[in-house]
Structures are given as structure tokens and as C-alpha cells.
């Protein structure tokens, strides 16, 4: 029997096409209306359009620049400075947050009641207070309470702490230092190779050769030899009080430190929860089998539990890292010159071109976000084949 015929406009296929056409039409109309409004508004206010402003002279200084920058540089250069600052603070905070997060997450599952409770208190406190409040608290509440440059806390000239920042001596690489760096790289590679050889030997023969004495020799000895051979191509830059504050040495300014501290501690609380969920997702039998084999808790964690937990930990970990990078935009609240503060803050008020600047800022963050998603998808695809569904 032929299926019942019905009017074409009741056919779900045509209905789908109709709906989609309507949606596209409505979207086009909305975009046209918004675009028209924006064009007339900009023309009325005599605000320039387009991205030509990126070549205009900036005229203002930036307090922290990891790449060369001067007041004669362009707005585009200022944007790059902000971007590099964002990436710098994010990178350092990611490393710290991961370290602290893993420690706290594993600590929450510790057998020691005090450690477990302390980690729980840490997580529950920091997760429930807004990040902006934490950033502001660390910067204005704590770091500003440090003494001024004349009354710094110091350990000789090795470590100086005041409200302008932390100063430590800096290693300055002179000509010929590349030999030492190359030697270090060689030493690390050789040490790694030795380690793998020892592992392979153990798997093959059951006996692990003792290489603990060779590793420091390779990692430290080779560079030491190179240093002597190249007549010590290094210099130490010491922090010294010069005029208003300290100069020389490696300086970490309080804006960076405050933002980094707040971001790390806050994200570490989330990472701790992710790690804990990951460890709990590993089957109980694994831990019990490890104990049955006589492995103590730390070995069981390192060799059995954490590697298996990593499969569950890594995807949410990647989105936490992305979240941290986006949260670094809170730098604007404490005067750290990150992308948003320099570009969507200062440059926007100087030029008035809100649309271009905000679109560009959004595009940059979106690009970071897409790169992270892509990397995570690749990781998922690579690891989804093995293991459990």
C-alpha cells in the first residue's frame, strides 16, 4: 500500500527547510539592522573606523614589557606587549596551579586526617570566593602591606622583598654561553637515554642497574666542564638600591605576583577537585592490587593510580587551563598590563574605536580557546581507542 500523501507543507523535510530559511532571514535582518545602526552612530560621532589605528603611535608607557616597547611604538605593538604579558602570567600560573592542585587533590584522599581536612578546607574556601575578590585581596590587602624600598626585607643581596617587587640576582648570558646551554641539553638528553636504558634492562633481565651516580654527573658535570672551557661566560646582575627603588637583577613586580598568586591558588582548588575525581574514578581493585603487591602508597600512586587517572583528568584539566588564561583578564583590576588592560582599556579610551578593539580582543581569546579545544580533541582521539569506553 502506498503511504498516505499529504500536503507538501506538512512534510517535515520541507518544514525543516522553511524553518531554516526563516531563521536565516531573521538573522540577516538583525545583522543588517545592527550594522546600519552602528554605521550611522559612528558617522554621527565622527569616530574613525577600520584597523588603521593599529599603526598610529601609542604615546604611552607600559610598566611591564617582556618584548621591546617604547612610547613611539604603535598601538599594534602595545597590543602585542599585552598579549605576551597575558601568556606569561598564564604560563607561570598554570605551572604553579598544576603543582599545588595535584598536591592538594592527592592530599584530600590521604590517610592522614589532618592533611585530608586541611585540603578540604582549602578547596571549599577558595572555590566559593570570587576570583576578583581574591586578586584584589592579594594585591591591595597583602602585597601593598610590604615595606617600601628603603626598608626592604632582604637576605643580603640574594633576595630582596619590598612593595615594588621581589628581586633576585639574575644570570646574564654573555657571548659564548651557548656552549654551556648546548652542554646542558646534551647532558639532559644523555641522562634521559640512560634512564630509558636502565628501564629496558630491568624489563629484560629483572635487574635494574644503578645509575643514580651517573645522572648528576651528566646533567651537572657536562655543563660545568663547558663553563670552565668557555672561561665562565656568565655574569650575575645584583639588585641594588638606585634612587627610588631597586635596579638590576631579576624583578617580579607585585602586579604580576599578585595576579599569579591569586590565579594559581584559585585554579589549584578546581584542579584539586578534578584530580580527586580522576583518582576516585580508577577502579578500587587497582589500589587494592597495588597494596597486595606490597607497593607503598606513594609508589602505588605514582606507578598505578595516577597514570590511569590521567585519562579522566586531562580533558577537564585543559579547560581549567583555558579558564585560567581567560581569568588573567582580571589584571585590569590591579594595574597589570595584560591584553585587556592595555588594549581594551588604554587604547580603547585613547582612540574610541570600541568595536574594532573589542572584536580583535575577542578574536585573540577565541583563537587561544580553539587551539586548546583542538589539542584536547587530538588527545581524546589518540587515547579514546585504548582503555575502557
Amino acid at each position: 500500500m502506498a503511504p498516505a500523501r499529504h500536503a507538501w507543507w506538512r512534510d517535515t523535510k520541507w518544514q525543516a527547510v522553511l524553518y531554516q530559511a526563516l531563521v536565516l532571514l531573521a538573522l540577516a535582518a538583525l545583522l543588517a539592522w545592527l550594522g546600519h545602526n552602528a554605521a550611522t552612530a559612528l558617522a554621527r560621532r565622527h569616530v574613525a573606523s577600520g584597523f588603521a589605528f593599529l599603526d598610529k603611535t601609542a604615546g604611552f608607557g607600559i610598566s611591564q614589557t617582556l618584548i621591546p616597547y617604547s612610547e613611539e611604538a604603535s598601538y599594534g605593538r602595545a597590543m602585542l606587549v599585552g598579549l605576551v604579558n597575558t601568556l606569561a602570567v598564564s604560563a607561570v600560573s598554570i605551572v604553579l596551579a598544576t603543582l599545588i592542585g595535584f598536591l592538594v587533590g592527592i592530599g584530600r584522599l590521604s590517610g592522614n586526617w589532618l592533611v585530608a581536612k586541611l585540603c578540604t578546607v582549602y578547596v571549599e574556601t577558595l572555590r566559593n570566593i570570587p576570583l576578583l575578590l581574591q586578586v584584589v585581596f592579594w594585591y591591595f590587602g597583602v602585597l601593598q602591606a610590604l615595606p617600601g624600598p628603603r626598608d626592604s626585607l632582604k637576605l643580603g643581596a640574594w633576595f630582596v622583598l619590598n612593595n615594588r617587587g621581589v628581586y633576585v640576582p639574575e644570570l646574564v648570558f654573555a657571548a659564548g654561553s651557548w656552549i654551556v646551554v648546548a652542554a646542558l641539553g646534551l647532558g639532559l638528553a644523555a641522562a634521559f637515554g640512560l634512564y630509558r636504558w636502565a628501564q629496558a634492562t630491568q624489563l629484560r633481565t629483572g635487574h635494574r642497574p644503578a645509575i643514580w651516580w651517573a645522572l648528576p654527573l651528566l646533567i651537572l658535570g657536562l655543563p660545568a666542564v663547558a663553563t670552565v672551557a668557555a672561561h665562565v661566560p656568565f655574569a650575575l646582575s645584583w639588585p641594588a638600591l638606585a634612587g627610588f627603588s631597586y635596579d638590576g637583577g631579576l624583578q617580579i613586580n607585585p602586579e604580576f605576583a599578585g595576579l599569579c598568586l591569586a590565579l594559581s591558588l584559585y585554579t589549584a582548588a578546581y584542579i584539586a577537585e578534578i584530580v580527586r575525581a580522576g583518582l576516585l574514578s580508577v577502579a578500587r581493585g587497582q589500589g587494592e592490587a597495588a597494596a597486595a603487591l606490597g607497593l607503598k602508597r606513594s609508589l602505588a600512586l605514582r606507578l598505578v593510580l595516577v597514570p590511569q587517572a590521567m585519562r579522566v583528568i586531562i580533558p577537564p584539566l585543559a579547560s581549567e587551563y583555558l579558564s585560567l588564561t581567560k581569568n588573567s583578564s582580571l589584571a585590569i583590576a590591579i594595574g597589570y598590563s595584560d591584553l585587556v588592560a592595555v588594549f581594551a582599556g588604554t587604547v580603547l579610551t585613547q582612540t574610541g574605536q570600541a568595536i574594532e578593539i573589542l572584536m580583535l580582543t575577542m578574536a585573540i581569546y577565541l583563537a587561544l580557546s580553539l587551539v586548546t579545544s583542538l589539542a584536547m580533541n587530538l588527545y581524546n582521539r589518540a587515547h579514546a581507542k585504548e582503555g575502557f569506553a
Partner: protein
Amino acid sequence: MSGTAFRSPPVHHVGALGWLRANLFSSIANSILTVLILALLAWTIPPLLNWAIFSAVWHGTTRAACSDAAGACWPYIWQRMGQIVYGFYDFDQRWRPDIVYALGAVGLAWLVIPRAPRKGWAGIALLTLYPLVSYVLLSGGWFGLPVVSTERWGGLLLTLVVAAVGIVVSLPLGILLALGRRSELPVVRTLCIVFIEVWRGVPMITVLFIASSMLPLFLPDGLEFDKLVRALIAVALFNAAYMAEVVRAGLQALSRGQREGAAALGLGYWRATGLIVLPQALRIVLPGIVNNMISMFKDTSLVSIIGFFDLLGVIQAGSTDLEWSNPNTAVTGYLFAAAIYWAFCFSMSRYSAKLENDLAAGDRR
């Protein structure tokens, strides 16, 4: 079985000593850790308590009361309590936010108390009637109530308004987006994916900057939105994208059989979604939804960056108040704000844990 008296276990295996031994001093490493932690606590907690309670100033009306103190300056908080709770709301109209607070508390209590009857009605009333009533009461202009413009809303009032509107608006919007993302219509699906990924990929600050600097450019000449309304729109759209991802996880967790069964019963797409799919999907991700609400509540503090005086904004503005300027007042203010935020968020997270427990009760063996 004659004459063998039962011996009690060794003293250091039971009771308090036994617990200490098992939990704190079970191995050498553990013992060292315990001692270190106890030392750390002894080094930090007493000075903290000292600063916050024992050396703190509790009474006084002027900065002179706090100027010599070595501890927290609580009179500063008492004096500013009005601003903290109401912002700059007209002093003689404060009964209006009071009513809004009271109604909100009653509604929430109704929802939260396990044995309260007719929770469905309470939920609907909270989502529809309450916002209308609050809007009328807070902004005025109706029923003879004098108008209080949104610049005067501030403090905890503003924080709760932004959070509530964000939550109430983002939930239905997020559901629609999640459904759209799983739709079979390619145009709808692509639009929803683009919308969600764009809003999720940018920091909230840029979204708020868009609301304050860019949105006015896109409105036609002569039409202007209140700055608070613009910020609320931005917050709602931003949170809708995150909510969409949470709901999508729930929709994915539901087996296809549910939809197929609904289709077999003759239910169309929307009826199947509303009657069969959504109730189950939302139940699955209810803890995730509440977690999202907690994040939303914390993110309301960002409106202080675009010039609103929410709870954090009021505290920050007050830290340079001519009358109370003192190294301790700033820290006292921040700690007080932190305590308020913590109280709200922790309650919500406890509720979420309880929900998770209750809902998983059917799955436990």
C-alpha cells in the same frame, strides 16, 4: 568455653588514642607531616583570630576609634552596613528592597525544605511572579511608588539582582541553545554551535566591556538602554552558553530510546522534549546546573569593573573613604565581603551535594 574472660583491646588501639594513631601518626612520614601541619596551624591561626576578634575594635563611630588598633576595624563595617546591603538606594525607600529580600528568602526556603508541599508552584512563582514583583518594587514608577533609578542600586542588592536575572534568564535560553545544538537542522545547529563557542571562548570582562562600550553603538538613534539592563543582557547571554553545555551533557546522557518511544507514542518534537526528554535530562545534570549558578553568583563581582557598585564595588570604594582610611579597614572590608560570598556559595554547593545524593539514591546499591 569455660572461664575465659574477654580481654579488652589494647588501649592504644581504641578510643581517642586509637583514632590518633590510625589517622595522624600511622607512619613516620605521616607523623612528621602531622607535626608540621600542627606547627603551621599554631603559627597562623592564633594571630588571625587575634587580629579578627581579640584585638579588633568592635565599637565606635569615627575613624579615631580604629586609628590605633592593631586588629580589624569592625565599626567601619557597621557604619557602612546600609551601603553594603542596599547600595545607594534612597534611605526612606529601603522598605522596598526589604520586601524583595523577604519574599526571596521565603521562596527559596520553600524550595529547599524537603517536606514543603507544592514545590512546583513555588518554583513557577519564583521564576515568574517574583521577578515582576521585584522589578516593580525596586524601580518604582508603578502604583505611586517613587522611581529609584538603577544607578542607586548597589551592594548586596545589586549582586543578588544580577545573579538572579542571570540565573533565571540563562536557564531557558541555555536549554533552547542545547536543543538547538543537537538539532538536525544544519542551519540551527551551526548557529547554536557558533553562539556557544564564541561566548564560551571569551573572558567575561570583554563581554561586560561590550555591554558598556559597544552595545550602545548598535542601538538605533534615540533608543537607549539603561546601563544595568545592558549589563544584565550581557551576563544572561554569557551564562546561557555555559548552561547550554551543561544541559547538552544531560541530553547526551539520555538514551535515544526515550525519544524513539515518544515518537512511537505520536508526540511531536516539542511535546516530546517538554514532557519526556527535558525532565529526565535536567534531573541528571541538576548538580551541574547548580554549580553553574554558583559560578554565576561569583562572576557578578565583575560588574564592579565597569562601574557598578555591587558588593565588591562598595567595599572597594569604601576602602579609601576619607573617614575610615586605615591599613586595617581595607582588609576588614575584603574579609567581610569574602565571608558573605562564601556563605552564599557554600550553601549553594552544599545544596548541590545534597541534590546529587538524593538523586543518586536510586542508583545506590
